């Protein structure tokens, strides 16, 4: 019992030492924190009550965010499915799966907002840049999970379908797809949800949606409008989450025997 206890204590000491070092390095100080709390109180006081200063720009921003999320999820999933299939190592030879896996890793490694910056330069300010950025993110996420789901399937069914002399497309449709459909619904709804969250953010770099309205309200110190925007974003995301849960419920429910 004694040896692991010592390791345990050493771990705590190391943790405390790291925290102290990092705090010093990041220029934290107590007076700064206290001033901040003061500012924070004033800040919150200015946020209450929330006020919808520009109803038009709020409504348009929310609508545009929703459009970005829907289109990005649709296009992203459409592109991600074949790439995920190519990346599955149990169905594809290594010379196909490795490039596909590299593409997925590349798409996953950047935050959507950073990808959005590049697309703002490429296709200009506006919703298209946001859609492109979220498509890249969706391809990375769905592609990875879809490939993993396919790698975990039982090959017996695939073999059985193949033994009937089915073509490659038929093997995929009847041997692979039924096994991964449930999980696919799970991460497709998750991705729509996640795109909705991110579509409210890409506007910070000019890629359309409510984020732009939010950022400019911040810069004008319109904190009561900021509060109103934040509340409506949370409302939108919450509605999206409820809807996603309902869709999952519909698709993942089991069939019932029915008397006629």
């Amino acid at each position, binding site marked *: 019992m004694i040896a692991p206890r010592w390791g345990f204590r050493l771990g705590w000491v190391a*943790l405390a030492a*790291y*925290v102290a070092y*990092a*705090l010093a*390095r*990041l*220029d*934290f100080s107590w007076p*700064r*924190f206290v001033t*901040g709390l003061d*500012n924070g109180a004033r*800040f919150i006081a200015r946020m209450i009550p929330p006020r919808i200063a520009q109803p038009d720009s709020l409504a348009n921003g929310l609508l*545009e965010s*929703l*459009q*970005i999320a*829907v*289109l990005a999820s*649709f296009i992203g999933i459409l592109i991600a499915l074949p790439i995920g299939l190519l990346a599955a190592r149990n169905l594809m030879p290594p010379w196909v799966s490795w490039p596909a896996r590299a593409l997925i*890793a590349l798409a996953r*490694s*950047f*935050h959507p*907002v*950073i990808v959005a*910056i*590049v697309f703002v*330069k*490429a*296709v*200009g300010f*506006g*919703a*298209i840049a946001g859609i492109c950025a979220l498509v890249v993110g969706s391809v990375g996420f769905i592609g990875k999970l879809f490939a993993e789901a396919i790698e975990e399937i039982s090959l017996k069914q695939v073999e059985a379908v193949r033994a009937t002399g089915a073509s490659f497309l038929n093997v995929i449709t009847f041997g692979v797809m039924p096994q991964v459909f449930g999980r696919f619904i799970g991460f497709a709804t998750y991705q729509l949800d996640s795109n909705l*969250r991110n579509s*409210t*953010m890409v506007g*910070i*770099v000019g890629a*359309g949606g409510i984020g732009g309205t*939010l*950022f400019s309200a*911040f810069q004008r110190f319109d*904190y009561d409008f900021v509060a109103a925007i*934040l509340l409506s*974003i*949370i409302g939108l*995301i*919450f509605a999206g989450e409820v809807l996603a849960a309902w*869709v999952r419920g*519909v*698709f993942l*429910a089991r*069939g*019932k*025997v*029915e008397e*006629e």
Partner: protein
Amino acid sequence: MSMVFDGAGTRTWKRFTPRQRIARFAIYLALVAGIVASARSVEVIPEFLIDAPAQMQDLFKRMWPIAWAHYPRGVHDSLVETLHIATLGTILAVAMALPVGVMAAHNVVPFKPLNYLAKLILVASRSVNSLVWALLFVAIFGPGALAGTLAIAFRSIGFVGKLFGEALEESHRGTIEALEASGAPWRSRFAWGYWPQVEPAFWSIALFRWDINVRESAVLGLVGAGGIGMALDTAMNLFQWDRVAMVLFAIFAVVVIAEIAVTQIRKRIL
């Protein structure tokens, strides 16, 4: 979808009930309608789209060659700062999320109002994006790494707390009942009954969140919350695209290294 007839044809097996069929149909319909409506009404400026390939080419031409020489002066320090923001933010988040996660687990704290309060805290933390948290903390504490660290911490509470609470709720009653029967106080029950069961999940959640936080802390600088995003923002505002490419490469390298590190650690300790 599939229909199987029994010998006489009186009993049929259907995969879905009519209600399920209608619900599915409604979802497909709503999906198509949503996509079509979005595609038709989203604002597209055709000139920008036609221009895109040329702009892309121009962008990559400006990014190449990558300004490697910029790394020691302009990138290294902010890269290290980003890692500190992510790590310190995760530590803070875990410290704050543990009690909330315990409060959210109804089998550990069998008191409904407290469960709901904890769930509310977790949902609130998760529904605000880390960039928004960063904007808020920049407004409160001024620009810098302090705002970034707190943004990462507050965004992560919801994630860590939710998963930790769920892990607690899934723990088996056996040892806990044994401890209860022996009259163990609350703290012993937690330390010897629940903790050993959720410890692997705990480390896995913390590592996973750290990995995510490394990615997220790289963009916080765009709103002034410290880290490598500040270097990115400066380079972009000055249109120094070769330096932007350098920063992007640094972010890519760190993210990849973090992911490899997490995978290795997970393999070793779990």
